[in-house]
């Protein structure tokens, strides 16, 4: 061993790499995931929007908002209520779905959106089977 300086150098180098690896792993910056939209918005600009879906007959109802978990009924119901916290300066669009019995004929799905107790938007969509549409909320 004493007679091979290159081998000694290699072994010392390998030892340093092995010791340094955990330190490097612990100190390197973590890959950052894209932050949620609400996390970037100042708290005073956030507002709670109440959404009420009313169906003309029992149906599986769903409300979808970008960047938020969708709210849906597990069984056919005639109404569904949900609240979404959004940027009041630029609220997201609401995608609403009513999955009706196709044999039931023409069905209606009414959407009402309230902000601080006042009705901000309302719309009624008609169709057979799957009734789906988008409600765009007005900016203040």
């Amino acid at each position, binding site marked *: 061993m004493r007679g091979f300086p290159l081998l000694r150098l290699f072994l010392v180098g390998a030892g340093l790499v092995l010791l340094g690896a955990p330190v490097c792993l612990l100190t390197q910056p973590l890959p950052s995931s894209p932050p949620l939209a609400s996390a970037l918005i100042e708290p005073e600009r956030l507002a709670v929007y109440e959404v009420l879906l009313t169906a003309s007959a029992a149906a599986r109802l769903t409300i979808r908002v970008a960047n938020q978990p969708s709210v849906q009924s597990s069984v056919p119901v005639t109404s569904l209520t949900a609240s979404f916290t959004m940027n009041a300066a630029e609220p*997201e669009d609401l995608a609403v779905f009513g999955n009706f019995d196709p044999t039931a004929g023409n069905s209606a799905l009414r959407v009402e959106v309230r902000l601080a107790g006042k009705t901000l938007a309302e719309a009624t969509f008609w169709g057979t089977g799957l009734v789906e549409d988008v409600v765009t909320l007005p900016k203040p």
Partner: protein
Amino acid sequence: MQAFFAIDLHDRRESISFFMMRLLIATAFLTCLAFAQGEPLRVASLSTVMADLARDIGAERVEVTEIVKPGVDPHIYEPTPGDRKTIAKSQILLASGLGFEGYLDKLRPSLEKAGVRLVVGGDVVKPIEAACEGHADHDHAHSHGSADPHWWHSISNVQAVAAQICDAFVAADPAGKATYEANAKKLQSRLAVLSKWVRLQLAALPKANRVLVTSHEALGYFATDNGFEIFAVQGVSTSDQPSSQKMKRLIGEIKARNVRAIFAENIENPKVLEQITNETGAKLGGVLYADGLGNGPAATYEGMMKTNVSTIVEALK
């Protein structure tokens, strides 16, 4: 027994001659019908989108010739002598207008001479102003007006143009009125379904992410309809060249707004965009069909819109 066979043979001869008679009458009827219908309406199109609408509305009553074909850059296209002959032989010429076809004014006298009816889509749409930046820092020799000519990126504009094409077909071929109107009605319903599909897809995209960085300023109508902000490397025409100052501003904007993806176009060299992605860290989001229809799934208007929307949502979500 002999008498029986004689009767049978007689009956057979009668039934064969009766069948032949019926075949003759049917053939004569179909021939008359074909003559009554006459030659199909000859339609030439300088717009791939309008050609698709014309095929839908006219169906078997029209013969659509695409002068500008999918995948060809219409901004730099000039009709060849052969194209001019084809146009002169047609009864209707479809054009996008709003300065999209820089050569259209030169064509007008020959169209009038040949009795070709010109249908310009831009005449019936609601134009938006072209956001052509950098007038001071690039050679602005391309031909376009102050309105953005890429009107087909708004479905409501396409609905208006579909009605215009239907009216033009009825005027040129009144015998086909019922067919044209029925087909146009079906097309309008499909466009309404497409419009809802687009809104449902885009609802999944947060408003803060609705920033489109594209090769050239072609998606202004789409942006206006769906709440997007547009940043384009070139101006409204593919012949516009970005200055180094504009590139610097654009790169700064992409970094500041944390834009996730930028988009290339089907008929352009995406090298400049690749350079921007290298400097900003934004990914190349895919290829958009900006100046008209493409091939494969984007070969129809509905297919093109669906391809563009899916590409945008997938890259910016």
